[in-house]
């Protein structure tokens, strides 16, 4: 701001929100000689150069080695990935395992959000709450989620949601027994800190003049919270959720290596390793990468749609 090149009362800033966000074009921007389309195509090809080189090198090395345990052939992997519903080494399909993993991650993640968001807001808003908890929580922050595994096993063992909810049989038992508390806890720890930190600093970074002007306009504490603070911090909260979900998803393999797990992508990978099916290991890794990227992308869309004001305000 500051060097506005027009006089007051002139046209507002020319902000083409929908035009630039996802690379879509507005009708009046379409240029009929197709130069925009050409440029887009050129960019797409340019961004595919490195993956193509990577796959080619892989192809050549795999052909040279002829040892699928060290490096499987590209076509074997492609076969696995284009038939994701096929049963693999009697462990269910790739899709099925991804689904199980997703449910686990979402449960741990949602629990983390439910606790970390209110805690972060309270710590950001009230100095006393901050001082009360900050030292304690700061001690646990540097501990990698994986380091919790032995302790978590000692606490929860193979206790599952089914045990907790007292479900003993039936369809629900099968689902709930898959959700071991140990796993949920590891994923929870992974997601907790990013969400907490972003909520806390989101509150800290709300511009003071917004709160002052609301007070002068007659806002009570409830108005301030509901109409000023919450909307102002929601971009940081969602950003923290995006990072938290990413970390939670990364904790998946360590969580699914825990005893009592008989499904999930993490388990599929470790089990495939023990039977020397490197192609399944890589297929599992690729699925983890793709699902993680899709989740991240969904959050980005939400951020772009809902919180464009934050990007455009400065």
């Amino acid at each position: 701001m500051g060097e506005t090149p027009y006089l007051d009362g002139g046209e507002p800033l020319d902000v083409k929100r929908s035009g630039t966000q996802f690379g879509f074009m507005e009708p009046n921007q379409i240029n009929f000689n197709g130069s925009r389309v050409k440029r887009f195509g050129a960019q797409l090809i340019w961004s595919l150069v490195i993956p193509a080189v990577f796959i080619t090198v892989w192809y050549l090395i795999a052909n040279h080695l002829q040892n699928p345990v060290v490096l499987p052939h590209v076509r074997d992997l492609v076969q696995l990935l284009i038939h994701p519903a096929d049963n693999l080494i009697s462990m269910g399909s790739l899709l099925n395992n991804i689904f199980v993993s997703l449910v686990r991650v979402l449960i741990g993640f949602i629990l983390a959000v439910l606790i970390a968001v209110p805690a972060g807001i309270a710590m950001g808003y009230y100095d006393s709450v901050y001082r009360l908890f900050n030292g304690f929580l700061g001690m646990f922050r540097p501990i990698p989620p994986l380091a919790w595994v032995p302790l978590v096993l000692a606490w929860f063992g193979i206790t599952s949601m089914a045990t907790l909810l007292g479900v003993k049989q039936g369809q629900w038992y099968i689902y709930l027994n898959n959700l071991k508390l140990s796993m949920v806890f590891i994923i929870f720890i992974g997601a907790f800190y990013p969400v907490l930190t972003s909520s806390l600093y989101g509150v800290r970074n709300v511009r003071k003049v917004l709160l002052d002007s609301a007070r002068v306009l007659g806002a009570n504490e409830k108005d301030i919270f509901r109409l000023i603070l919450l909307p102002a911090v929601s971009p940081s909260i969602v950003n923290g959720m995006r990072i938290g979900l990413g970390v939670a998803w990364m904790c998946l393999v360590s969580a699914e290596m825990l005893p009592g797990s008989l499904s999930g992508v993490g388990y599929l990978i470790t089990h495939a390793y023990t039977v020397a099916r490197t192609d399944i290991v890589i297929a599992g890794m690729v699925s983890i990468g793709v699902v993680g990227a899709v989740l991240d992308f969904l959050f980005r869309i939400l951020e772009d749609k809902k919180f464009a004001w934050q990007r455009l305000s400065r």
Partner: protein
Amino acid sequence: MLQEAVINIENLCKTYATKQGAFVPALKDINLSVDLNDFICIVGPSGCGKSTMLRIIAGLEQTSEGRVFYMGEEVKKTNREVGMVFQDYSLLPWQNVLDNIALGLVFAGMSRNESLQLAHKYLKLVGLEAFARAYPYELSGGMQQRAAIARALANDPRVLLMDEPFGALDAHTRILLQEELLRIWEQDRKTIMFVTHSVDEAIYLADRIIVMSAHPGQIKEVIDVTMPRPRDRANPLYGQMNARILGMLDR
């Protein structure tokens, strides 16, 4: 006296504690009374506490010593009847201009429809009716300040405190908004206390100019401006007064 002062400041002192534990006086022995419909400008060097004084009157900060009264009642917290416009852009960036102007009305519990209708009236008053649905980031600095003024006025306050509202604007926009503010003020003559570091702006706007000195902030002189409005900057009296006040600030 027929009518008591709208704002009365008695022996106001404000001290800040530094991190080293020392006390720095920001305002010292301020006595001032502001009558209904007065347009008062407060000028002074930076650090003279003029903004702090305004924030205390608004109820955003507390006094260290002395008391501030609004309509005979001591100011302890913010009050809908005392509005304020800030130097920093203060519109909510996630709401459009119309919703922003309606904000105070929403706080007062008015229905959405009613508040938007009233907000529209004030939008017109500041000449932004074409930008009702625009977001603050789509507006120039001058337009954002117009909207902020409309938002303060929509609450129909008795007193309007303005803390260098045109400080961040370029010279031309600034003069346009000064004229605009006077035009609006002529309609209902709210009591205005306007802080500025521009002597020229103070002479153009005020009935009365409070000249302050810094370290500690004290009232140095109170000057009545009797030239009829709209004031002509080419008028020799204007220039003389400007030179006189600038001279005071130098010392």
